[in-house]
């Protein structure tokens, strides 16, 4: 049987369903020589803001059990320098370049989208929605369905390329937020990513990170990612869902597909092994062969759950 890893995410066709997650590909040139980027489905930029961001004080990373706690404060050179310096390098890598944009106000997102308008190097936009909402003075902009839809919808209406909304992990009503952003016009949703975390150094009575609070990444996240993808994929059927968080092997990626993902992003695993996105794709092929399947779409959402599941509210104490 002929295997194809190609996947169409609502207008952007990836050669493999494995991408490098936002913030894990440097400025586009660091991975040269360590991974064949043409064998990677897409490369996400670090999250770009309107103005340059210096980021948080160091240390910015600490290890935890099967994970890392980190905070960079979205250090980036700002959209103008990004377009001049980093975007051309990202695009030269022969993988699709997806630009991650972040902000604290609706206007910032609109301006960022405008700045990327008509740039042939940009294959898609991912809207980072986990930062604070400066305008409405709320701690997480995308944790509210109406606000996430307002911002992601504005980007989607302006953008000529597909737009993916990366929803904040641990938002309690993730399926509702996903429905709202899809109604607002986004091409797809990115689900998972880093939940908030804290590292504590008891001997010094201090936080482990210079910026105090951070985010958790790494394999410890995988079951949370699978649950979130499972819930969202059922809420927005026929919408591309991208899984991110804790994926480090082909088997992990297949688990995400079974839960309903169309594609996956790989972050921490890329930091440890820059060739991980390629070896994960190879692992997916091995799984497909062993099952006699042709494409990841053949397992997408095929997790076998009892017919009775989902009939009642899915509460922890439901019987």
């Amino acid at each position, binding site marked *: 049987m002929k295997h194809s890893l190609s996947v169409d995410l609502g207008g952007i066709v990836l050669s493999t369903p494995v991408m490098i997650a936002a*913030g*894990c*590909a*440097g*400025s586009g040139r*660091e*991975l040269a*020589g*360590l991974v064949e980027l043409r064998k990677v489905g897409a490369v996400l930029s*670090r999250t770009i803001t309107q103005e340059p961001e*210096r*980021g*948080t*004080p*160091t*240390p*910015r*990373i*600490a*290890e935890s*059990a*099967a*994970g*890392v706690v*980190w905070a*960079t*404060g979205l*250090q980036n050179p700002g959209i103008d320098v990004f377009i001049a310096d980093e975007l051309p390098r990202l695009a030269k890598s022969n993988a699709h370049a997806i630009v991650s944009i972040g902000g604290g106000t609706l206007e910032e997102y609109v301006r960022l989208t405008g700045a990327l308008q008509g740039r042939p190097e940009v294959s898609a936009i991912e809207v980072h929605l986990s930062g604070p909402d400066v305008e409405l003075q709320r701690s997480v902009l995308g944790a509210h369905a109406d606000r996430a839809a307002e911002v992601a919808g504005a980007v989607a209406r302006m953008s000529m390329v597909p737009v993916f909304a990366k929803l904040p992990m641990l938002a309690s009503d993730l399926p509702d937020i996903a429905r709202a952003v899809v109604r607002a016009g986004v091409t797809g949703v990115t689900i998972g990513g880093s939940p908030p975390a804290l590292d504590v150094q008891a001997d010094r009575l*201090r*936080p482990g*990170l*210079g*910026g*105090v609070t951070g985010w958790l990444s*790494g*394999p410890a996240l995988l079951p949370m990612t699978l649950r979130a993808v499972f819930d969202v994929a059922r809420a927005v059927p026929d919408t591309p869902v991208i899984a991110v968080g804790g994926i480090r092997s082909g088997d992990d990626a297949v688990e995400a597909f079974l839960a309903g993902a169309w594609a996956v992003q790989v972050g*921490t695993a*890329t*930091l*440890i*092994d*820059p*060739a991980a996105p390629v070896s994960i794709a190879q692992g997916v092929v091995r799984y497909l062969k062993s099952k006699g399947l042709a494409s990841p779409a053949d397992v997408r959402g095929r997790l076998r759950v009892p017919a009775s599941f989902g009939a009642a509210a899915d509460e922890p104490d439901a019987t």
Partner: protein
Amino acid sequence: MTRVRAEILSTRKLGAYQSLTLVAPEIGERARPGQFLAVKMPEGREFLLRRYFAVHQASRRGGWAGTLEFVVDPQGQGSQWLTSVQAHEFLEVIGPLGTAFAYPKRHTNCMLVAEGHGAASLYFLAQELLARHKRVDMVVGAETLERVFKPIEGKRLSQTIAIVTADGSLGDRGSVMDALPDMVESTSTEVLYAAAPSSTLARIAGFCKERGIPAQVAVEERMGCGLGLCQTCVVPVARKDGSGYDNLRSCVDGPVFNPARVLWDRWLSEEPTMLPTPPEGLPVVRTWPG
């Protein structure tokens, strides 16, 4: 940089440290003093990130050609695991990474200041300086005798050497800062190199600024990937024209920096808050002297 699966040729305990020699000609042929290696940790453990070690020795000629040596200070889970690996096992290593120390063109008298395992990269530097007919003097310090790295090697590589320990178990009791002024005076130091914990480097930076001695230091900041991907190991460094500063990645923009441009107070502030505006009067720094 190259990614290789390298056989361990030998591993030996040196005081508090473990020294590992790898067969890695692809990396060894290009490694220069100040650069470092990223060593992958084993699968199936709960610690994930690579561990980073300065290159201690890269032999290009002779019976040891193609070998690469680095020194482990077993303080955490990953480095302790590295003390347990045996000869003929394999490590997955990326290197050489980061910037190297620059050699002086005009000046001759070089002072090398090392604290703890920082001596590993400076002994490599000393060899390269000697090969360029420079004079090498050293101040080597540590907490205890066991943590003074290869004192005999230090003596062999230097014209004069001051060894200091915090407990007085080897050499004079004190810190490298106690011994440095006299040594700089007596050897007519023209340029200074240092590898030490950041608090010591900050004091060395102040000393060099006061005396007008050009210097290069290898910094240590906690790294995520070592490859320039994750933006975690940053150090605030003033721009050359004094127009501001940038958080530069110590893995690709460093680890070797001009200490006169590092904003030490900002970097090492124990106060875990952001300082949004640049401080007044950023230094304008001339470039590394020839």
